[in-house]
């Protein structure tokens, strides 16, 4: 157990993480590309039109993965931030910071595609549906995290403060989701399910799976690249950066 722990901790040392991320990120990017091509082909060409929604349902193939990832990334981000705060592991702090823009991007994507899908389906771009509203608040949470990081000059302090905020947010996310759902049902608003289709075609499931995988691979690749850059900026004075960037001038 102890040996395994130390082996894992080794990857948390900045130079090792930097090298490892540098090797892994292109792989994830290639995988993302392949999955996108396969996923888009399956989603746009092979999958049959929905018998009720026609062609417009196809936007769900990007909307649903984006929504999943946006929520999952926030929890992951809070987890990394907590690790960084408690054990003072710099790479964890860097990972948390690197996840925020990607999380915000996917949240925005989920909102945007939700609006595009809502127009033909509900007849309005924006409906105060529980999921969309929660997603909107999630976007605010991401923006708050990013803004706090930007406002605090000292990177160490920014990481610690961001961690407290992310943890406060992650405790709040279920409460927010619950209260918004509660609010929505009480107000007798629209109760159309975003993930519709009680019996989804096998091809549709495959397309959704491929697109989800593609989005994940993309997210991982981008986060690793951003974390590498962030690490360089934070540690530019140290020897390992000089070694890798040559001379350090």
């Amino acid at each position, binding site marked *: 157990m102890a040996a395994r722990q130390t082996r894992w901790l080794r990857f948390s040392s900045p130079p090792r993480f930097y090298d490892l991320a540098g090797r892994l990120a292109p792989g994830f990017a290639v995988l993302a590309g392949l999955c996108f091509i396969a996923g888009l082909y399956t989603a746009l060409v092979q999958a049959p039109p929905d018998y009720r929604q026609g062609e417009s349902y196809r936007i769900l193939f990007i909307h649903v993965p984006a929504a999943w990832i946006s929520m999952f990334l926030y929890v992951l981000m809070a987890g990394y931030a907590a690790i960084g705060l408690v054990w003072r592991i710099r790479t964890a702090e860097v990972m948390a910071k690197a996840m925020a823009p990607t999380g915000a991007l996917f949240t925005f994507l989920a909102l945007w595609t939700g609006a595009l899908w809502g127009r033909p389906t509900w007849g309005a771009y924006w409906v105060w549906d529980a999921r969309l509203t929660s997603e909107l608040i999630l976007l605010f949470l991401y923006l708050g995290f990013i803004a*706090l990081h930007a406002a605090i000059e000292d990177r160490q302090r920014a990481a610690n403060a961001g961690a407290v905020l992310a943890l406060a947010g992650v405790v*709040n996310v279920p409460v927010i989701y619950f*209260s918004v759902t509660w609010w929505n049902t009480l107000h007798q608003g629209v109760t159309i399910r975003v993930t519709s289709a009680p019996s989804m075609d096998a091809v549709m499931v495959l397309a959704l799976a491929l697109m989800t995988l593609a989005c994940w691979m993309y997210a991982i690749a981008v986060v690793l690249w951003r974390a590498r850059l962030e690490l360089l900026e934070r540690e530019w004075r140290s020897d390992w950066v000089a070694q890798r960037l040559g001379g350090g001038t």
Partner: protein
Amino acid sequence: MKTLAAAFLSLLTRDLTLALRRRQDALVVLGFFVVVVSLFPLGVGPDPQLLRSMAPGVLWVSALLATLLSLERLFSEDGRDGTLEQLLLSPWPLPLLVLAKVLAHWLVTGLPLALVSPLLGLQLGLEPGEMGVLLMALLLGTPVLSLVGGIGAALTLGLRSGGVLIALLILPLYVPALVLGAGAVDAALYATSPGAHLSLLGALLLLTLLLAPWATAAALRIMLD
């Protein structure tokens, strides 16, 4: 134990004494609340039915904004005059001292907001029973606003853009209190029981009471590091 209680009470009375000697600060917040609520009819028109149905949301959002306005002062003054450092150096658990400060904040901002709200509800056409629910909901909800706001006030301590940033950090976290609080009044408006809303609001208050002071204390230590 006795001296811990003494420390808590002493901090509470210190903040209350200061607030009492600078009454204008608390009055400005209250005035803001009243003015914002009074502006809504001018914006949406004097239709009594419309105003009545909007009243819960208008009153709650205004209370939220008024609280937000007062939050920056929660720690910034103590941070400037050095007493906040002494707070961190105290042998007592910091979350409890934070709780004393938040309690003082609520007593001078949240409580007056709640107490004056029936008057504004009257302006918007609420019935006496509904005003009772409004008062109840604000009495349960404004402490949540102060407690959660404390986290934001601590996280923006000493930052140049603190005042604006605090809104972005804290407002999303206010959603549950807003939904449940305004929902309670709404329920009363449509002649259903607000009991469920109020119970949930009470549960939210307990949860916040347990967690927020720790987060605020951690944020203070980080920002003064």
